[in-house]
């Protein structure tokens, strides 16, 4: 228990902040993933073959390649790519991107591929009549999406999105390789300096379990809210 004390003698406060970091990265990544899903879901559902191809390319590549490889691509290639873009605008200084942003974007792109599939499935399982009825009633495209399709889609999507959240949360452990101090990295540091890896990695496992457990509780509440009336 001494090892977990707060303050200078133990690792309690460090691990606490690391847990907050894991949560912060997971939420940011999930939101970035939604942004990607917002772009790629319409592409996958589009009438045009070439747009379909672009959407399928994204989800197939990301879901078929290991997360760690994607993270290495961003970790080693991220600042190079940004500097290349900056050089077009005439900026030639060295740019270093912060590990939080690299990690969140890398995990976000992965999470986005899964979210895209979830949204696509949810929209496709909404009855065609709903779209047609909206059209016949002269509802604008915008209102149709926000008032008719989205509420029905969310009910269908939430159970699967909770899976995506679990995957995202667990994937954040991988960005410890980039040096961002989240649960895994902090446990690695603590295990190295105390020579007690068994304890710290087991404790990390407990922290992850706690996070998945608590988020499941929250998501179940959301699910109940959106499936009212069914």
């Amino acid at each position, binding site marked *: 228990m001494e090892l977990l004390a707060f303050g200078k003698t133990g690792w309690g406060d460090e691990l606490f902040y690391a847990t907050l970091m894991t949560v912060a990265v997971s939420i940011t990544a999930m939101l970035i993933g939604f942004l990607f899903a917002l772009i790629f879901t319409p592409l996958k559902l589009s009438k045009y073959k070439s747009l379909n191809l672009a959407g399928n390319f994204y989800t197939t590549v990301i*879901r078929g390649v*290991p997360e760690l490889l994607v993270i*290495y691509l961003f970790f080693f*290639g991220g600042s190079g790519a940004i500097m290349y873009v900056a050089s077009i605008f005439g900026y030639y200084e060295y740019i270093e991107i912060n590990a939080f942003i690299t990690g969140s974007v890398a995990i976000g792109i992965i999470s986005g591929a899964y979210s895209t599939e979830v949204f696509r499935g949810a929209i496709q399982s909404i009855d065609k009549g709903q779209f047609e009825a909206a059209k016949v009633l002269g509802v604008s495209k915008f209102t149709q999406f926000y008032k008719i399709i989205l509420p029905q889609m969310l009910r269908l999507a939430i159970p699967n999105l909770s899976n995506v959240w679990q995957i995202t949360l667990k994937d954040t452990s991988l960005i410890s390789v980039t040096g961002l101090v989240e649960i895994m990295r902090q446990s690695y540091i603590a295990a190295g300096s105390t020579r007690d890896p068994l304890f710290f990695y087991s404790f990390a496992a407990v922290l992850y379990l706690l996070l998945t457990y608590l988020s499941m509780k929250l998501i179940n509440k959301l699910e109940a809210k959106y499936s009212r009336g069914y």
Partner: protein
Amino acid sequence: MDFELMITSFPTLLGASVITLKLLSASLFFGLFIGLLFAILRLNKNVFINKFAYGYSYVFRGTPLLVQIFIIYFGLGQIEYLRSTILWVILKEPYWCAIIAFTLNTGAYTSEILRSAFQTIKPGIIEAGKSLGVSNKIILYKIQIPIAIRQSLPAYGNEIILMMKGTSLASTVTLMDLTGVAKYIISTTFKPIEVFIVAGGIYLFMTFVIHNVIKFLEKKYSFNS
């Protein structure tokens, strides 16, 4: 684009993917047995056995694979007693530690897949077996397991692909699998995009093969044909 690097690194990366495939096949092989065992335990009426099997799958599905590998590779070596047993021969090797972690992880997911497959078997089929005087053991081996395997093929195919991606974590415990070698080449040449395309291409090819094999099996064992 450095096409020359892509061409020269291809054979090296292809060679490294042999380790990826070895890790994958070994952990799937052992994981299937563990998964089957725990799926059967989950269906046991005894509350303790049931809860134990549920706890196993909950813990392994609720924590990242990286933590599991680190606990087994770095953590278990710390126990003095283990070092003196015959088990240490296996546990000091990162290769076997990775396989143990992957096996336990895929075993947890497989047990869930098989359990839900067992539960979707219509009770009438089992009752029919019982009324024909077939013993419980034969019902399990000749009726329940074959149907469950067929039912779980699509989900299990996904699990194989997830596990294939999971084997990339072996690179964190010094193993030079496909991702490990890719990282090494990236960090020596600083050409992440080229290496990513080649290594990612190999992974995608493996995904493609697995996907189609499962599809073929699904067709072959479908009930309607």
